[in-house]
């Protein structure tokens, strides 16, 4: 297989260590031994005119990229193929381009025009893919082009193109965040879109660009809720997460009445029955005081429409709905999510991991919900440790008085596991159960004590630590256990456990008065060999014994303190010094001495064993931040419920005036209804009359936008014939689909009014009754509709009749240009203004020969597609310079140079000038060449300012306006500017514009407007400039041109000229 070969070759060629050479291609490793040579080979293949070779080369290059190897030096060779006919080559070139454009910005610009052409393709999929690649090229200079393209695509007829536009928004935003305001406008527009295809993508863009603009959602809220079920699964996740936040800001907490219960939840669960009853009473009392809560119908709509998605096969969707219910639903309804979440536990272990984290958080707040599924959290020996520990966490959270015995029995089997981390976690869990549920405290303690005789030291150590915590609760009853533990010090080695035992004995030395000094004696003996934490506890124990039983332990304490004084660890030395001062009475000892006993043997509160998942629910569940328990970059805080509900009427969708439409239009709507997503009409019963109206008006608006859309596109879309036909065709097809009710999806929201179902069956039965009849009437409406499309723009036919004729840019045949150009605008000689000269060769570098050039703005006679460049040679040397000529022009593809005639000789001090022609192909790339004399060669480059790439044309005002009308949309670039004081008069403005660009003024009626026209030299595309003076010094500059790159650059240049 060729690809695999390419891949292996990649490996063979590089110096990958120890990788076996794949035998089947003997040439691979040997011949292309160095990177340089191999790339040369690829370049050759790319330059060939065989597609198969190009493809092969591209495959190899992509394999390199995949491997993480640098292939950037192939950029020029690859980019040339961007317009290749072979679709696979093209796609691979796109892959390459997107990967390396950022590094090779200048060269990447060469490809832009291909995509610009693609943006106007009649095929929606090509338009979309052009936009996709164009917006993926991270080159800041094309930001304005991208912006235009996005704006244009946002009003494209095809929902797929609009979807791509939505995808492009965050790309542009990350490239240039200054565009935010304009992008928000586009987002606002796309949010109003009615198709499911766009919804997910635009909400994603919204979340990335302007998540704080919650006001943009109001009008679209109901629509998003209704479309949700038909949106693709990834979009669903994004929309649900966004709506959760929205709902938190707009609706009241459904659990207001229960908030009191929640506060007491912990107590109520662990407490006795009497306590429970008491709580109930207080709660009931508080209920009476509050005014009754009524859920906003929009809030209900959201809950109802998301519920079916719990059945999604996509775990992310299920989780999104689950968190929505957890954060938004009334307590009584949250339970429904448990079943779905438990189902996810059957999925991949990564999914389990995330779901369990969330379940752990939920199970603290809403324990009841998972109780029926207790057994689903039982642990299997085959589970990975991290899953086991999370399940343990959930089981512990779920433990209560009724199920604790089952859980403890389960825990007992876990302790026998071979996975030691898990065993340790289980012991901790038992400890937590014991502290939380008083009833089983003794049972747990006994169980743990039994574990003290376990053969595994880790188990014993962990048990000691947990027992220590438990004993703190009621030490008096457990002196036996303390004694038992004291004996363990002989054997147990784990430092944490030893420290815990010593602490216990010290703390409760009164309960074990005989053993304690003995333990201290043993520890003093081994003091030097202990770990630091153990040493600290030994000092502690010594101090406490000294205070309670100084007779027996005085000497021992002195001894231990002396040892500690010379310890290596400064912490221990510090502690020893501190304690000695505190407990051993000396003359100097301070006032604290008499309080020593109080200090050391104070009553200490028992530790509270808490879940690490407590209070994690202040993060939105299911989010990355929740999982990490830390705020991730870009995390949107989940707002608290408002105290007062904001005005719900903001979500009402207003009815545009002209919905009071004629009967014919009404019929149209009916036909169209199934077309605009069947979920449209599904507004549930609670939504009441107003939403019914709303949905009709949606339709009308959508219909209008189709009509308006075609209309506004008319002037700019070259493939008009094709695009024009498509809307009606599309609709026709949809109409057919609508007829066959069956294939339509009718997955609708959970509870639906029966009346609607009735209507569906009704219509289908009437269809079957009079099948042909219905069809006929339908086609009738169809034709009518088409008629309206046509009649809505009476000029259209005529317009695109001459459209092809005038606008030369879209015609692929260059031979047609001269004819076209001569037929319409006349090229006129330039308007002259101050000439700017540029230096080609400085006197110093040229060893006396200096060369300057300027753009003479005269037509270049031998070839009208060339820009005339006047070159001036001056000989500043003492000797004659002979044979001045140009050689070896290095030009980018398409560029041509008409060299000047060789200058035979140039006497000292003499100056001469020649004219040469360069065809820059309408790009500002420099023409590079060598300048030769009889002795030397110099390197020279001529780079034209964009204003020199054009020649002025003469036009009347009417012609100008007509042409301008055709160059709107993508081809129009508008920029605002402030004119400085020096540049207010007509004369200066005209002069400055004409100096910046080779254009001619178009006569103009209005005195606050200036118009200029030119055409580019190579392709003859029109460039129209309009400068409109507004109030004060403000002005607006508009450039209309097929060539967007030129247009963009020209705007920049002119503004610079005007404002300087």
């Amino acid at each position, binding site marked *: *297989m060729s690809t695999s070969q390419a891949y292996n070759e990649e490996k063979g060629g590089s110096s990958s260590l120890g990788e076996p050479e794949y035998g089947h291609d003997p040439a691979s490793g040997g011949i292309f031994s160095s990177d340089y040579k191999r790339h040369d080979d690829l370049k050759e293949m790319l330059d060939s005119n065989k597609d198969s070779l190009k493809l092969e080369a591209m495959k190899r290059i992509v394999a390199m990229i995949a491997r993480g190897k640098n292939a950037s030096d192939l950029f020029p060779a690859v980019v040339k193929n961007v317009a290749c006919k072979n679709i696979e080559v093209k796609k691979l070139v796109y892959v390459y381009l997107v990967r390396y454009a950022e590094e090779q910005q200048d060269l990447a610009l060469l490809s832009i025009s291909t995509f610009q052409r693609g943006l106007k393709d009649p095929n929606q999929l090509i338009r979309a893919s052009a936009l996709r690649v164009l917006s993926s090229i991270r080159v800041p200079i094309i930001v304005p082009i991208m912006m235009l393209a996005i704006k244009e695509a946002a009003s494209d007829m095809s929902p797929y193109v609009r979807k791509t536009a939505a*995808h492009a928004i965050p790309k542009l935003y990350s490239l240039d965040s200054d565009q935010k305001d304009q992008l928000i406008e586009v987002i606002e527009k796309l949010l109003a879109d009615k198709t499911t295809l766009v919804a997910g993508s635009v909400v994603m863009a919204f979340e990335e660009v302007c998540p704080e603009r919650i006001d943009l959602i109001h009008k679209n809220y109901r629509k998003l809720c209704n479309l949700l079920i038909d949106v*693709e699964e990834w979009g669903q996740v994004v929309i649900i*997460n966004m709506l959760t936040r929205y709902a938190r800001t707009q609706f009241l907490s459904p659990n207001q009445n229960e908030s009191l219960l929640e506060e007491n939840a912990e107590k109520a669960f662990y407490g006795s029955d009497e306590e429970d009853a008491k709580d109930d009473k207080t709660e009931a009392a508080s209920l009476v005081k509050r005014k009754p809560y009524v859920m906003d119908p929009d809030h209900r709509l959201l809950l109802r429409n998301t519920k079916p998605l719990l*059945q999604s*096969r996509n775990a992310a969707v299920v989780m*999104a709905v689950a968190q929505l219910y957890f954060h938004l639903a009334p307590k009584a309804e949250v339970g429904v999510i448990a079943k779905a979440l438990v189902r996810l536990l059957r999925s991949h272990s990564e999914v389990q991991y995330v779901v369990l984290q969330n379940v752990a958080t939920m199970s603290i707040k809403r324990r009841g919900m998972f109780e029926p599924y207790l057994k689903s959290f039982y642990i299997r020996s085959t589970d990975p440790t991290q899953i086991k520990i999370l399940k343990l966490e959930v089981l512990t959270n779920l433990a209560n008085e009724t199920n604790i015995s089952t859980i403890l029995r389960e825990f007992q089997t876990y302790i026998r596991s071979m996975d030691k981390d898990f065993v340790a976690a289980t012991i901790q869990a038992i400890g937590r159960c014991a502290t939380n549920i008083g009833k089983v405290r003794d049972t747990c303690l006994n169980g743990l004590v039994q574990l003290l005789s376990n053969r595994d030291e880790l188990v014993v150590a962990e048990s000691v630590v947990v027992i220590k915590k438990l004993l703190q609760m009621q030490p008096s009853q457990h002196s036996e256990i303390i004694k038992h533990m004291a004996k363990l010090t002989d054997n147990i080695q784990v430092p944490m456990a030893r420290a815990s035992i010593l602490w216990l004995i010290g703390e409760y030395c009164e309960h074990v008065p005989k053993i304690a000094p003995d333990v201290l004696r043993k520890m003093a003996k081994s003091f030097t060999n202990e770990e630091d934490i153990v040493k600290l506890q030994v000092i502690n124990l010594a101090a406490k014994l000294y205070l309670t039983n100084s007779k027996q332990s005085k000497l021992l304490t002195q001894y231990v303190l002396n040892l500690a004084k010379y310890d290596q660890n400064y912490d221990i030395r510090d502690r020893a010094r501190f304690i000695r001062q505190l407990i051993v009475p000396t003359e100097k000892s301070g006032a604290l001495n008499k309080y020593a006993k109080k200090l050391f043997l104070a009553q200490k509160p028992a530790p509270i064993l808490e879940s690490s998942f407590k209070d994690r629910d202040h993060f939105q569940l299911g989010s*990355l931040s929740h999982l990490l328990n830390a705020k991730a970059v870009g995390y949107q805080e989940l707002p608290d419920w408002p105290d007062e509900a904001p005005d719900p009427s903001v979500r009402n969708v207003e009815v545009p005036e002209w919905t009071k439409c004629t009967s014919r239009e009404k019929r149209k709507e009916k036909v169209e209804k199934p077309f605009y997503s069947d979920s449209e009409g599904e507004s549930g019963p609670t939504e009441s009359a107003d939403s019914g109206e709303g949905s009709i008006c949606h339709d009308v608006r959508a219909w209008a936008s189709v009509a308006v859309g075609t209309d506004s596109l008319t002037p700019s879309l070259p493939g008009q014939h094709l695009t024009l036909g498509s809307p009606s065709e599309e609709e026709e097809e949809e109409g057919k689909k609508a007829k066959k009710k069956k*294939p339509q999806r*009718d997955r609708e929201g959970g509870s639906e009014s029966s009346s609607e179902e009735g209507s569906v069956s009704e219509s289908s039965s009437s269809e079957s009754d009079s099948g042909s009849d219905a069809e006929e009437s339908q086609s009738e409406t169809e034709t009518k509709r088409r008629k309206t499309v046509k009649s809505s723009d009476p000029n259209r036919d005529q317009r695109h009749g001459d459209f092809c004729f005038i606008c030369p840019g879209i015609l692929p045949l260059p031979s047609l240009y001269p004819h076209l150009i001569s037929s319409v605008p006349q090229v006129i000689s330039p308007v002259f203004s101050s000439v700017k000269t540029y230096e080609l060769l400085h006197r110093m570098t040229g060893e006396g020969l200096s060369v300057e050039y300027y753009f003479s703005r005269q037509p270049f006679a031998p070839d009208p597609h060339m820009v005339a460049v006047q070159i001036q040679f001056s000989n500043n040397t003492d000797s004659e310079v002979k044979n001045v000529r140009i050689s070896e022009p290095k030009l980018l593809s398409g560029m041509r140079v008409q060299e000047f005639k060789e200058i035979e000789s140039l006497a000292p001090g003499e100056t001469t000038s020649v004219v040469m022609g360069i065809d820059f192909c309408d790009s500002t790339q420099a023409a590079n060449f060598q300048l030769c004399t009889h002795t030397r060669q110099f390197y020279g480059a001529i780079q034209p300012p964009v204003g020199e790439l054009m020649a002025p044309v003469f036009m009347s005002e009417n012609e100008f306006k007509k042409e301008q009308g055709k160059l709107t949309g993508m081809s129009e670039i508008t920029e605002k500017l402030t004119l400085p004081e020096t540049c207010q008069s007509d004369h200066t403005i005209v002069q400055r514009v004409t100096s910046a660009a080779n254009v001619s003024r178009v006569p103009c009626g209005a005195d606050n407007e200036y118009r200029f026209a030119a055409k580019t030299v190579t392709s003859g595309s029109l460039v129209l400039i309009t400068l409109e003076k507004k109030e004060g010094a403000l002005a607006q500059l508009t450039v209309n041109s097929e060539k967007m790159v030129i247009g963009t650059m020209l705007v920049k240049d002119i503004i610079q000229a005007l404002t300087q």
Partner: protein
Amino acid sequence: MIHSLFLINCSGDIFLEKHWKSVVSQSVCDYFFEAQEKAVDVENVPPVISTPHHYLISIYRDKIFFVSVIQTEVPPLFVIEFLHRVADTFQDYFGECSETAIKDNVVIVYELLEEMLDNGFPLATESNILKELIKPPTILRSVVNSITGSSNVGDTLPTGQLSNIPWRRAGVKYTNNEAYFDVIEEIDAIIDKSGSTVFAEIQGVIDSCIKLSGMPDLSLSFMNPRLLDDVSFHPCIRFKRWESERVLSFIPPDGNFRLISYRVSSQNLVAIPVYVKHMISFKENSSSGRFDVTIGPKQNMGKTVEGVVMTVHMPKAVLNMNLTASQGSYTFDPVTKVLTWDVGKITPQKLPNLKGIVNLQSGAPKPEENPSLNIQFKIQQLAISGLKVNRLDMYGEKYKPFKGVKYITKAGKFQSLGSRIVLG
């Protein structure tokens, strides 16, 4: 959302990288390797790792780590689910999702990834759409391609994305129209030593293979739909029909797909089709122990239990095992301490038995734990929950399709823990 993706094999080589936004250096994976080292076991690598500038979300599938780089807040499940979808797609395209398969088809892999994500946001993840965009490699096609120089990239652009049934491509044609449904049920169970069930549950899926021309509209009904407690659907299924009539009504995708997965309500008692009698004992102060396991059929509704495999993770102290199997063969891996007994079919007349001596490390203390037994099995022609497909109707097309339903019951996670047995 998803910034970059790195594919890493078990030996820590990054063998593929793809970036959807600006390029992230491979060195970001060092954090992953660090976590991997700490985790010891591959399955204990945390799926989400936080690094100073990025977050890494990874999955482990078929000996490959799919490590994605994230820069901003995103639901972790979103990424995990997507990565699994990528792995599924590779599986679907190349027959296996392995390092070699990916390396052999690196260009197709790249093209797929390009289509599946745009700027890190999922674009086309439906297998039917992808297959129209990029044709899966077959031997025949690769031969033809190498001769004619044609490509794997479809030259017609797919229309599926534009329709409101994005999972089905248009213009499907078959000479033989067939629709097959496999009802596969798995029993998850934990059984304790005495043979009583600690936990048992039936999980099922219906996998379909639909090769029907045109735009067929199918409805599948069950004899006893109430058995299904919790169901998750392929997006093609009309939810409302299910809610109201308990009928699965859908326009199917073309080819293989999972129609639904379900859980049988836990109220129903689960019939456990096999039982295990086991006696594993280690004597105090001796370097050997006894091992005796018998497996027998139970409540199998007259069907044969086959493909029985038992695996046991023996305690660390076990050196080797000398056993005799009355049926099938056994292996013991002294490194991982895993005993595998491939039993095969169970015949009630002669119950399979495995017994013998366990040799322990001398001097090691007596292993305290009776290891848990994991059991795999299969029963053909039976859905253990009793679920039965009633009928399949087709609307929208004229021809008569060939229809077939197959039932299989398997052990899912079937385990006998510690002193108990687990099926799985």
